[in-house]
């Protein structure tokens, strides 16, 4: 399948660039850590409150990080008209989208897995016996963020005021992801009954599947001028 190869080539290009420049890695790691600390300060010293807010803080940090990650990946593309040249190749736009999505998601997934223990330590929360389920939760949640971020970052890339526009457009759409991910991981670390996580995880999965189809199909309209 040539199209799958194209997806992989675009994803590899984005990851290779990131491995060279480390711009996103540094920015998002630092940013998420700062967000976690600031939210912890804002909550105060109440240990119970901190424990209950842990997953909320983690997901807020990840939501902002996904904005940075997606915007930066287009920043690298736009220099010297490289993305423009890429789009004159006989590559389906959907493959370009899926490639960029794969790179962004892979990165965000890894970031989530790194930030999870950091959050648990900072907020004094315990992972509990169901912690392995946190991995798919982070996977589905970061995929939801990446889906919308990569589409909208491509849309805002050549608009005025793109830095502030992207979060304004993206966040209302990913509210269900944020709520579902916070609640699912909350019940997995023992803040609520663990069975409740199932419904939220199904909601996350449903969102991801719907938007994989929608965004892939519509990406061509976003990058064509």
């Amino acid at each position, binding site marked *: 399948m040539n199209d799958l190869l194209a997806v992989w080539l675009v994803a590899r290009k984005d990851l290779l660039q990131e491995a060279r420049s480390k711009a996103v890695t540094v920015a998002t790691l630092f940013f998420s850590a700062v967000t976690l600390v600031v939210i912890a300060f804002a909550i105060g010293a109440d240990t119970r409150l901190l424990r209950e807010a842990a997953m909320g803080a983690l997901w807020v940090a990840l939501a902002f990080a996904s904005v940075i990650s997606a915007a930066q990946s287009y920043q690298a593309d736009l220099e010297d008209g490289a993305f423009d040249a890429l789009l004159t190749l006989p590559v389906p736009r959907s493959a370009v989208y899926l490639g960029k999505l794969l790179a962004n998601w892979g990165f965000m997934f890894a970031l989530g897995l790194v930030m999870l223990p950091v959050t648990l330590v900072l907020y004094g929360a315990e992972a509990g016996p169901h912690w392995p389920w946190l991995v798919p939760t982070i996977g589905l949640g970061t995929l939801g963020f990446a889906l*919308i971020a990569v589409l909208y970052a491509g849309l805002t890339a050549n*608009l005025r005021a793109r830095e502030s526009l992207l979060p304004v*457009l993206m966040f209302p759409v990913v509210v269900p992801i944020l*709520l579902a991910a916070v609640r699912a991981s909350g019940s997995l670390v023992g803040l609520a009954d663990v069975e409740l996580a199932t419904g939220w995880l199904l909601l996350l999965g449903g969102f991801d599947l719907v938007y994989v189809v929608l965004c892939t199909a*519509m990406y061509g309209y976003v990058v064509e001028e």
Partner: protein
Amino acid sequence: MTTNTNVRWDRPVWMKAWAALIVALFAVGAYLGLVWSPPDVNQGNLIRIMYAHVSVAWIGFVAVGLTAFFAALYLWRGKRRDDVLAVASAEMALLFSSLTIIGGMTYSRPTLNTFWTWDAKLTLTALMVALLVGYFIVRALVDDPVRRGRVSAVVAIVVAGSLPFNYLAAEWFRTLHPSRAIALDGSGVTMAPDMLSALLFNTVVAGLVYAWFMVDRVRLGRIEAQLEDARVAQEAVPSGKRGVVRV
């Protein structure tokens, strides 16, 4: 070259008649809601806010759905008319959902003792306003009309697709599952036949208002398009005038 002489600036008579009909029906709807229908067992006369509030909210959601429908139609066949319809519907959705929020706040003050409650449906409506504002920001930032239509159509479809998820999440997050509680849309209220018919009547009136504005917007859009075409025609070089350059 097109001239402006064939542009009809004024509203046709049937639209004026339609507007008059709406005013009359609105008066009837107000009578039905305020006087004719009985007070609620639990909420007393507060129930009367519901007739305006719920009918507006319903039409607001229908308007968002239709925005996405026209947007998809525009992406599919690229007729400027579909873009005009999508914007018109989005404008009405923004208006109706803002009214829903105001209505919801009026309703929740006496019933729930607070102006703002994180009730699922009210939260959803607030999100919908935020999503629609995003749609209009994007439209304002793109200059080229075709690109503006296409890009904002993508936004409209993403927005409409997120509403069911937003609804589900807001519902689960705040209230208890299928809530037959005093939901702010009155869905939990025992709906006596008289109440239901008053509500349906008011919904039809709100729907007629929506449809009237849509038709009027298309009329304006057509005038805009004619003027625009005339302007472009002045700049453009008519095809074939110089002959095809063959190499």
